[in-house]
């Protein structure tokens, strides 16, 4: 399967869009006309259709097969949600139309908020953040804003467990916080004593993922929250693993002050090859006043938008996260998912997700090593590479061999606290037959690895659109765009 680039297929005199030439064209551009038209190839529509269909066939998606990526919740993406998001009443409205003409859109935002608040037991939700990491940024800004408002501006440290997502320290650092890491216990959970030891009057917040990145629920989370609050700090929870606990526990009841929610994980909005996401942040009563603008408020039966920092209802707002009001297209999809599941279906979804992960773990633990076997897994099953010792095969090799079996690999080498980690999240949308086939495949691979069939692993994948790619070469002399003549790499150094 080979497919050229549009720059090789297309021609600048061809176009796949028929646009009339305006009559009597006169420019009012003040001499700033483009001197050289952009050198962009055009494709006729048949050519474009074929090109992108062919590219798509080099991809793997949830619809292709099981997608066991830990911490990423690749679940079924209902097409109903796509259809709903494309209703003209949602897709063809402008963020700056008069609010009287977008009451239905504001109602969607209100309804989505209600669901998120009920599921989390929190006081407020900020819808604007555009993805999980953006939500983290928003939540941490709210914490900083709260400290500033309380004359606690000197708090400049954020405590983050070693097992955290990379975005956590990156987010904290990006708004000027110093990151203080704490190690995990041998059982994969955070030690409340280690937290206490790390806390001080300098600490602004603790950032914790719960269920954590080892796939475990932090049993001491309530104590940790209490310790954090006692130290005058806030408790930020990473919501990446929210899918394990819908309808089972409300994070507000655990003492969390802020958590972002990846609508593209738990609430099934499509990952789309890396976005768009949406990362609403739920906030505790203490942080609620510091939510960013805009927000929707009800006013005499009509809904309206508070768009300006400092306006009534947004006096303490942390500011603005981006233009306009957030990822409306994703809100509609997530709400459609919630309405479809209902309270009962959402709890069932979490139970099934957790059940499936534990089933996978229980079905493989005789062949693959489980670093933290003593606790039930949540919606992810974590393995390390102890079982590969002496085989000459690495975690990465197992991942690539899985591709040859028709699967997307699991998450590998994360969390960092486990050596050669393999993190498997089947989600609730796999059938038992599908899980059984996946388990059988992994068992077969494990036996092959132990039997010394190294070629099957080291050279893998053999049957994918590409064999392993030379990432070093890509990074050493980066070629980041197509050029007629020489690659850009040389110049880029």
């Amino acid at each position, binding site marked *: 399967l080979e497919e050229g*680039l549009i720059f090789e297929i297309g021609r600048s005199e061809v176009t796949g869009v028929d646009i009339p030439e305006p009559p009597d064209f006169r420019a009012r551009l003040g001499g700033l006309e483009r001197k050289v038209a952009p050198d962009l190839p055009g494709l006729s529509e048949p050519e474009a259709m074929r090109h992108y269909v062919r590219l798509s066939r080099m991809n793997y998606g949830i619809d292709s097969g099981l997608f066991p990526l830990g911490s990423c919740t690749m679940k079924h993406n209902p097409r109903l949600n796509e259809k709903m998001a494309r209703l003209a009443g949602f897709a063809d409205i402008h963020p700056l139309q008069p609010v009287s*003409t977008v*009451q239905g859109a504001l109602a969607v935002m209100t309804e989505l908020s209600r669901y998120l608040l009920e599921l989390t037991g929190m006081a407020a939700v900020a819808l604007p953040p555009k993805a999980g990491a953006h939500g983290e940024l928003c939540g941490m800004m709210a914490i900083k804003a709260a400290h500033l408002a309380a004359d606690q501006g000197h708090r400049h440290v954020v405590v983050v467990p070693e097992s955290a997502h990379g975005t956590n320290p990156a987010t904290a650092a*990006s708004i000027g916080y110093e990151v203080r890491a704490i190690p995990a216990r041998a059982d994969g959970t955070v030690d409340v004593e280690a937290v206490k030891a790390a806390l001080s009057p300098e600490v602004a917040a603790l950032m914790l993922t719960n269920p954590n990145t080892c796939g475990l629920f932090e049993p001491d989370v309530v104590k940790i929250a209490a310790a954090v609050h006692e130290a005058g700090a806030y408790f930020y929870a990473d919501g990446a693993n929210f899918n394990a606990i819908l309808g089972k526990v409300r994070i507000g009841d655990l003492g969390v002050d802020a958590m972002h929610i990846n609508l593209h994980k738990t609430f099934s909005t499509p990952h789309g090859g*890396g976005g768009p996401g949406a990362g609403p942040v739920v906030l505790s009563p203490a942080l609620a006043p510091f939510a*960013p603008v805009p927000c929707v408020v009800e006013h005499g039966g009509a809904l309206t938008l508070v768009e300006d*920092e400092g306006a009534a209802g947004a006096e303490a707002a942390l500011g603005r*996260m981006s233009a306009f009001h*957030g990822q409306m297209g994703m809100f509609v999809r997530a709400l459609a998912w919630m309405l479809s599941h209902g309270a009962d279906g959402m709890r069932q979804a979490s139970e099934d997700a957790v059940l499936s992960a534990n089933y996978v773990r*229980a079905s493989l633990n005789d062949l693959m090593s489980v670093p933290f076997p003593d606790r039930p897994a949540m919606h992810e099953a974590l393995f390390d590479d102890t079982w590969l010792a002496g085989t000459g095969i690495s975690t990465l090799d197992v991942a690539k061999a899985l591709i040859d079996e028709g699967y997307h690999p699991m998450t590998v080498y994360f969390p960092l606290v486990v050596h050669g980690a393999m993190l498997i999240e089947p989600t609730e949308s796999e059938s038992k037959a599908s899980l059984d086939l996946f388990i059988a495949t992994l068992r077969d691979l494990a036996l092959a690895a132990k039997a010394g069939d190294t070629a099957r692993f080291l050279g893998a994948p053999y049957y994918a659109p590409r064999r392993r790619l030379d990432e070093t070469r890509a990074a050493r002399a980066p070629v980041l765009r197509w050029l007629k003549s020489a690659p850009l790499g040389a110049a880029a150094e």
Partner: protein
Amino acid sequence: MRYLPLTADDRAEMMARIGIASVDALFADIPKDKREGELPDLPRAKGELEVERQLARLAAKNVPAGSVPFFVGAGAYRHHVPASVDHLIQRSEFLTSYTPYQPEIAQGTLQYLFEFQTQVAELTGMEVANASMYDGSTAAAEAVLMAHRVTRRRKAVLAGNLHPHYRATIETVSRYADDAVAALAPVPAGGEDLLSAIDESVSCIVVQSPDVFGNLVDLKPIAAKAHAAGALLIAVFTEVVSLGLVEPPGAQGADIVVGEGQSIGNALNFGGPYVGLFATRPKFIRQMPGRLAGETVDAEGRRGFVLTLSTREQHIRREKATSNICTNSGLCALAFTIHMSLLGRTGLTRLARLNHASACDLAERLAAVPGVEVLNATFFNEFTIRVPGKAADVIERLAQKGVLGGVPYSRLAPKAGLDDLILVAATETTTEDDRAAYAAALKEVLA
């Protein structure tokens, strides 16, 4: 429940394998007193038909742009997107795929990102572009942070005619990063004095062209002054279609070009998801935020693509990352790439000309309405009118007449004291009838 494949029998068999009697055993680590006994206080599961009815009812409470004469812009623009674009982005293999961390089975995504990067670079007149940001405003904020890293200075100057939402986004990020921002006052008719704001303390100056009022800005003298002061010029656009007709920032000396790509391939969506474009010079690649697709070869020597320079990113460098951005706008970037591939040079140029012609015609018609003044000497597909009285009231009364007439500047910047200005946009989707209807309605409203 239609999305949940497990049956009661399945669950029982699975629990037997695990060795538990009830699924609650798996939630034992949750403190018992914190576990939810009752179901959340939300409705029960609904069938597809019921969900569709409920959401369609809400959708019907909005006025779609396509159903009325429509002139709203100010950072998001209504364009016609070919049906093939929306069809293709819904292909399972694009829609339901993950970030292309496993390049062997993600060449589709990686190749279109490479195509996207090339298109963005070519459009902006820059050498390199990344694989997209959330939107134009967050791209602008990231550009400022990048300028700080490059110059090791921490003060940004924002042109007064920068979109107020972009300004607020940059100010918010800067405030929490303890960086300084100097934002100038708006000059609706254009001709802002930007040069005097640039000095050796400044890391960058952020200039939008066409600016929020629609005026085109000659970036060349600004670039010269900035470079002389050791600062960077960050050029911003909110209407990427303008680059089909207007001299690109790259040709005018910009160091970083950011903007909103929604116009190409993407619907209005009430503000999101959109796609941020981000381009710069080769020497700054390693300070650039966001993902990058790069060309390489596979073990058999075939051309292939990978995510590259990931040492910049949060999952490698953690607290030293160039940005915390992780998820970006993959699918919106795909829509952009496909639409742009269909357009090509020929189509984009025609599209830009048609947009400009539509706006020129509208400007003439509105200027002829008694009491209305068109402020712009230059513009692309959006311009500013001054009306007698409050712009917000005029817009509301136009809406009551079924015309969505634009954006009162006061909505974007209530404290600017510019309450009589309306930003008015026209695109290829605006018909002559629409434009005539606007002029007529405005005349009535102002009478």
